[in-house]
């Protein structure tokens, strides 16, 4: 019979199509951030973005299909959110040379593919600086959801930032799972990990574990004088964590929204960006949030550290 491609000939005039990771558009994390960016762009440009979400347990074929369908329906750019979309984007992009594809957290190749990666290690370095300065016990902790390269970037930056600020500081590093994406959705486990760390006199905990993070924040909030540091978005603002916001020191924010908004705008303006772009501290692609004002007192040190990184004085490692 005819293929679904043949039956559709709307060419790239439908605005952006966004394919989310399993978390979905309201995951209070990078998916949500991407959605915010798309919505903002949509509002400014008068277009409506299409959002699609992955099911749990998807394979590459499912992602390929989702992206194909979006491209096929005429959405442009088509953006995959999450590194899992890396391979599939590359594959689909080859079939739709006139569409621009974007992907968050991955760096695939292709003339019409735009990879948006973030310098998580740089912002984590700043988080490490803040943690080291704020810690009274001299022990800080890092909890990763899954021990994979992406989360290792957070770890590497955080440890480096903390130790370079205070060479005597002890950093507890722990992961929830070795290789199981459950690590991004297991608050109970994160909560136990945090509780154990707090029991070992750790008083600042940086948690890079997706939705598991709330478990950790909750434990920290129960301890007087202890601080939690969030990731991805400004967790101080997050409605689900409102009751603990006074314990959220700061968050290492990835401006996925900015990246996505820029890409949509560019495509709307007839450009077709390609290649891999790293959103770094230098261009505000990542930043340490200041809501709550808890780091106002150490803002100078943080600014100095930022400057060192921007100037290339300090090179932050992206692997532990």
């Amino acid at each position: 019979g005819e293929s679904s491609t043949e039956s559709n000939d709307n060419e790239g005039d439908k605005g952006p199509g966004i394919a989310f990771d399993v978390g979905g558009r309201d995951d209070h994390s990078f998916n949500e951030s991407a959605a915010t960016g798309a919505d903002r762009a949509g509002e400014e440009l008068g277009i409506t973005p299409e959002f699609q979400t992955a099911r749990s347990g998807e394979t590459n074929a499912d992602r390929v299909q989702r992206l194909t369908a979006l491209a096929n329906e005429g959405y442009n750019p088509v953006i995959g959110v999450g590194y899992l979309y890396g391979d599939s984007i590359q594959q689909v992009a080859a079939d739709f040379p006139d569409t621009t594809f974007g992907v968050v957290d991955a760096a695939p190749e292709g003339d019409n593919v735009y990879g948006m990666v973030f310098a998580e290690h740089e912002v984590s370095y700043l988080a490490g600086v803040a943690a080291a300065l704020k810690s009274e016990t001299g022990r800080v902790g890092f909890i990763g959801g899954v021990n994979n390269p992406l989360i290792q970037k957070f770890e590497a930056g955080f440890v480096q930032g903390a130790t370079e600020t205070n060479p005597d500081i002890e950093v507890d590093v722990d992961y929830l799972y070795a290789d199981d994406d459950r690590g991004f959705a297991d608050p109970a486990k994160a909560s136990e990990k945090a509780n154990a760390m707090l029991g070992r006199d750790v008083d600042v905990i940086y948690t890079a574990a997706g939705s598991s993070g709330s478990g950790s924040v909750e434990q920290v909030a129960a301890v007087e004088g202890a601080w939690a540091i969030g990731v991805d978005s400004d967790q101080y603002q997050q409605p689900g964590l409102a009751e603990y916001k006074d314990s959220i020191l700061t968050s290492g924010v990835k401006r996925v929204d900015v990246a996505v908004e820029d890409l949509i705008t560019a495509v709307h303006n007839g450009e077709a960006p390609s290649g891999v772009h790293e959103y770094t501290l230098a261009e505000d692609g990542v930043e340490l949030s200041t809501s709550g004002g808890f780091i106002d007192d150490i803002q100078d040190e943080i600014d100095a550290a930022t400057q060192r990184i921007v100037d290339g004085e300090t090179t932050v490692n992206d692997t532990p």
Partner: protein
Amino acid sequence: MTALTTLAERFRPGAPGQKRRGLTYPKALLLVAGALFLLSLVRVITEENSLTATDQWVSAMTFAVPIGLAGLGGLWAERSGVINIGLEGMMMLGLFAAGWIGWQHGPWAAVAAGIVGGALGGLVHALATVTFGVDHIVSGVAINILALGVVQFLAKQWFGNEGSAAAEAGGNDKQSPPMDRIEPFSVPGLSDWLGDLAGQRWFLVSDAAGVLRALVHNVSWLTVLAVLLFVGTYLLLWRTSFGLRLRSCGENPQATESLGVNVYLYKYVALIVSGALAGLGGAYLAVLIRMYQDGQTGGRGYLGLATMIFGNWRPGGVAAGAGLFGFMDALQTRGGGAVVHATLLLFALVLLGLAVWQYLRGRRVVAAALAGTAVLLWAWYQATDTMPLELVTASPYLTTLLVLTLFAQRLRTPRAVGKPYRRGQDT
């Protein structure tokens, strides 16, 4: 191994005065004391104080309860003769229902909702297996698939709908809005006194105090409820006529029917309770993290099934199995590699003890094998200081596998479990 062996088991030349199997209270106490002693010993040797720390045990309980509740649910079902591999699905239903009701009406309502949600799953299983006579495993698997589908579908419809009240309150496709907390409680004087005692680091005494303190310090009300359910299950199933009837449905339903007992009814009741318990396990998770979140059950229903077999279809055994699981899980979550590394020594000692026991019973080969394994573990312990995260994560599963391998042959399945039963049919 095969059905033929049952002939041998039945054959008891001049059988009078046979012994009843199972643990007597003194034996059980002795075991507990022995375990505590070993634990203290290992604690002192390895200086891993968290082995007997209160927080470790509180956390063990937190991990153990949902698995234990699922296991208890499995026990109800299998004691009535129906295999319930759908526990995972029933747990999901409980988790979902709790999250759904919880954010609107508070955590206790969530608990009730979880129970109802799980019970509905149990009812479906009863309908399929008892009324329609579908193979138990087949029906259970189908329920797991269905529950997953329904829960994800409804979560998207009810929590993630743009502009809905739930979405406003923080819900999304994968999670419900948060609910209130159930505050844990501590027994005032006792908790502190035991805390002081535990702080002394005295051999055995402080260890006992640390462990016991977990029972009075920061205890979740739901844990209390779970403990009551275990005790209640024991009393109900082994001390009342209701329980006798229910258990005999799992042993010989034809005989039970012939004595005027409505076997279908008992199986229905058992399966609904089974689902309700699994649902409560799900609700426990929801209350713990204060919301429904996709994938929270994470295979705990299957683990519950494992603890049930591990526990020889008895509440005490299920509790012990879930406890072991919770303990290992808490150990690895809280302590990581170093602490799990310490348990190598613990296992080596336990295996050594078993080896001695087997040797005394005249089983030299088994004893030698156990002793050999113990030495290997000890050597491993000596040669390293920590364990890789991957192995640590696997430790609860490896432990379960090891324990079952050692003891599976002493287990006693309800006779008629898994057999389709039709009223008035002989076979």
